[in-house]
């Protein structure tokens, strides 16, 4: 049984990777790998169709998929709706609930189709309750199916929040679709389980390129590759080698590398040495949680998942927060930051900037903090404050300012 599942997954993975390779062959010239795209991904045809279609934006109003997820997700989403409504944001949401207790993937497939149609999504963390190996993690499935190959977490300190380190400003760029998250596990003989970690040149190349591009576009100075190539000489070794190759194309940007364990120590002792960090999937998960912890916890930062076609925005640390759901104490700032990222992505620049200003004012000036930051305020207090600020801004603006079609850099 387990072997069969393993083979199945392996087949799926091979398909995925062939697909990714063909997808990336053009922009980055990885065609020389000599791998033939023999098998098509199950959804290739609909993906192809979607590429030729415009995204759902009509009359200046956008439609965006909303996946509330589990735990505190739904309440955070209701805050986003409130803020958008009060601020007159020209965005409508298509809400797609995913039932966590149902093992069928119908909801999940619908959610993925919906993101394909709309181009962007705002997402809470989705629960996958089943431990059956047949039921894949919904979060991972969304990232893999939409080929959201990179996750970006911009970690900046909030001056108004007491934390061990101040003035941290690190960008974590994480490979988002392979590595240890390849979801290929099997029990080869009873009592022996193998989990495959997959690193491909193609995916490493485009994530490295993304990191250097990001550094260049945002005036950053240094990119640090995080790896464990001293132990995993082939897999992490490949990742590191590709990063070094790519670095040659960006002579203005300094490149160095660091081993993951050392990196974690350095992060908690001297985080200011880092600028942009690029790393494989699992290390990314750890490092982003470490940095979030350093500057004030899970409730502050937002993560952005990008592919060539689609973008999904979610809170930076992927926790459902089921324990505090419904208690009006969850920190809504991370979801607000995600919403601001979404607005930026939709080129609703004014709204994005106002929302960030509102967050900044609430946290750093008015110091309205939820219990996780050591404050006394409820989630509603935070949202009320943001709304008050946003409303004032909106009242002094016109509709055209609100739907400004500025050609901003999309990422």
């Amino acid at each position: 049984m387990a072997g069969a599942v393993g083979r199945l997954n392996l087949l799926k993975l091979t398909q995925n990777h062939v697909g990714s390779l063909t997808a990336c062959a053009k922009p980055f010239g990885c065609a020389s790998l000599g791998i033939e795209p023999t098998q098509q991904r199950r959804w290739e045809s609909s993906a192809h169709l979607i590429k030729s279609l415009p995204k759902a934006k009509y009359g200046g109003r956008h439609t965006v998929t909303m996946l509330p997820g589990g735990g505190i997700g739904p309440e955070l989403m209701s805050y986003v709706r409130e803020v958008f409504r009060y601020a007159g944001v020209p965005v409508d949401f298509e809400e797609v609930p995913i039932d966590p207790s149902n093992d069928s993937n119908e909801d999940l497939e619908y959610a993925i189709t919906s993101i394909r149609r709309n181009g962007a999504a705002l997402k809470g963390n989705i629960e996958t309750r089943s431990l059956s190996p047949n039921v894949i993690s919904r979060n991972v499935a969304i990232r893999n199916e939409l080929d959201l190959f990179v996750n970006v977490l911009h970690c900046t300190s909030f001056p108004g929040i007491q934390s061990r380190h101040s003035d941290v400003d690190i960008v974590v760029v994480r490979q988002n679709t392979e590595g240890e998250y390849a979801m290929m596990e099997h029990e080869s003989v009873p009592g022996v389980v193998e989990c495959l970690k997959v690193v491909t040149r193609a995916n490493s190349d485009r994530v490295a390129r993304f990191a250097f591009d990001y550094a260049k576009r945002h005036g950053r100075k240094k990119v640090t590759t995080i790896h464990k190539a001293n132990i995993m000489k082939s897999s992490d070794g490949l990742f590191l080698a590709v990063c070094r190759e790519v670095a040659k194309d960006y002579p203005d940007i300094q490149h160095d590398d660091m081993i993951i364990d050392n990196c974690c120590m350095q992060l908690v002792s001297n985080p200011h040495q880092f600028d942009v960090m690029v790393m494989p999937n699992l290390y990314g998960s750890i490092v982003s949680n470490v940095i979030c912890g350093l500057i004030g916890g899970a409730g502050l930062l937002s993560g952005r998942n990008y592919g060539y076609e689609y973008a999904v925005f979610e809170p930076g640390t992927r926790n459902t927060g089921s324990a505090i759901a419904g208690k009006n104490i969850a920190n809504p700032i991370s979801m607000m930051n995600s919403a601001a990222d979404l607005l930026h992505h939709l080129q609703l620049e004014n709204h994005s900037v106002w929302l960030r200003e509102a967050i900044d004012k609430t946290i750093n000036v008015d110091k309205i903090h939820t219990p996780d930051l050591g404050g006394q305020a409820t989630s509603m207090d935070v949202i009320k404050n943001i709304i008050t600020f946003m409303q004032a801004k909106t009242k002094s603006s016109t509709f055209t300012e609100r739907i400004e079609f500025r050609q901003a850099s999309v990422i």
Partner: protein
Amino acid sequence: MAGTMGGLKLLTNSAPKILRAANGLPTKSLPCVNYMAASTPARKYSIQAPVSKPEGRTLCTLIPGDGVGPELMQAMQEVLEAAGAPVDFETYFLSDIQPMLSAKVDDVVNSVAKNAVCIKGILSSPVTGDRASINYQLRSKLDLFANVVNVRTLPGIQTRHKNLDMIIIREQTEGEFSSLEHESVKGVVECYKIVTAEKSKRIAKFAFDYATKHNRKKVTAVHKANIMKLGDGLFLKCCQEVAKLYPKIEFDSMIVDNCTMQMVSNPHQFDVLVMGNLYGSIVDNIGAGLVGGAGVVVGSSYSANSVVYEPGSRHTFSEAAGKNVANPTAVILCGAKMLMHVNLQYHGSKIYKAVEKVLKSGKSLTKDLGGQSSTQEYTYAIIHALQH
């Protein structure tokens, strides 16, 4: 947020939101709001305060149009002003039949592109002349590819079929309206009907997106693919392809001649209809006729970045110009829809309610609805209803 594009749907489907909108006023609806909040667990986290009323003044392009257009626009502006809507108008007199008085099309296009919203009266297109009509130029320059007409029964209007609520979506940048005609030899004229996969998929996706946004259940593609196997065949094929992306919405197709018959005999079977240019023009007019005529149906044209509201069936009614008898309902509702589109739901729904109240009361109706009132009296009745 859900129903802002189609104001009509919003009224029927999101009553709680509207009630909450009324929260801004110290009126008797206040206890009702608290009741809603207390009884609905989903609203546990929402905030008990007036709903969004962004007050930055919105600039809207206004094209009065020919025939009765200017007087209807005047009525609309008066109603919007009375409702306190923070909107300013940038008026351009645009006309094909009075070229000396007309503004330049490019100026108008720039204005609409800048403001993103426009309310437009009907422009008559001269039958003679070889120039593309201003209507056509506006649509193609702004790329207003989708026309939406919401055929919905309004209260108090006597019609054969009751409780109609359907949406007719029409591709309006290609098809028979390509303005490509020539006389190949004397006595033989050819007119090109252009159908492209790109635009067919775009309009199909628009229709399905619209249906998704407004909780509609079914999309029907209207075509004549049994005769025009290639042209309409391509359109139908594109619709079928796009339909696969919307598994929760039923899709079927119907031949245009059958569709027109079904429209007048059993219109309740339709939900959202999507079709090419010429069929759209015809079916729009049948739809308008079903619910009370040209004076009461709202239409809107969408591009990705801008939207133009205009009466749903395109007649200038020039014989009534200056006689103060035309029905301004469609144009006033255009104004209300425009307000909802720019997040002024509060003012938009206020106007909707006032119009429905006046129609329901049966007093002060215009002649086309069997009343005796003038345009002006009807408008004042709506303004009066706004205040109560």
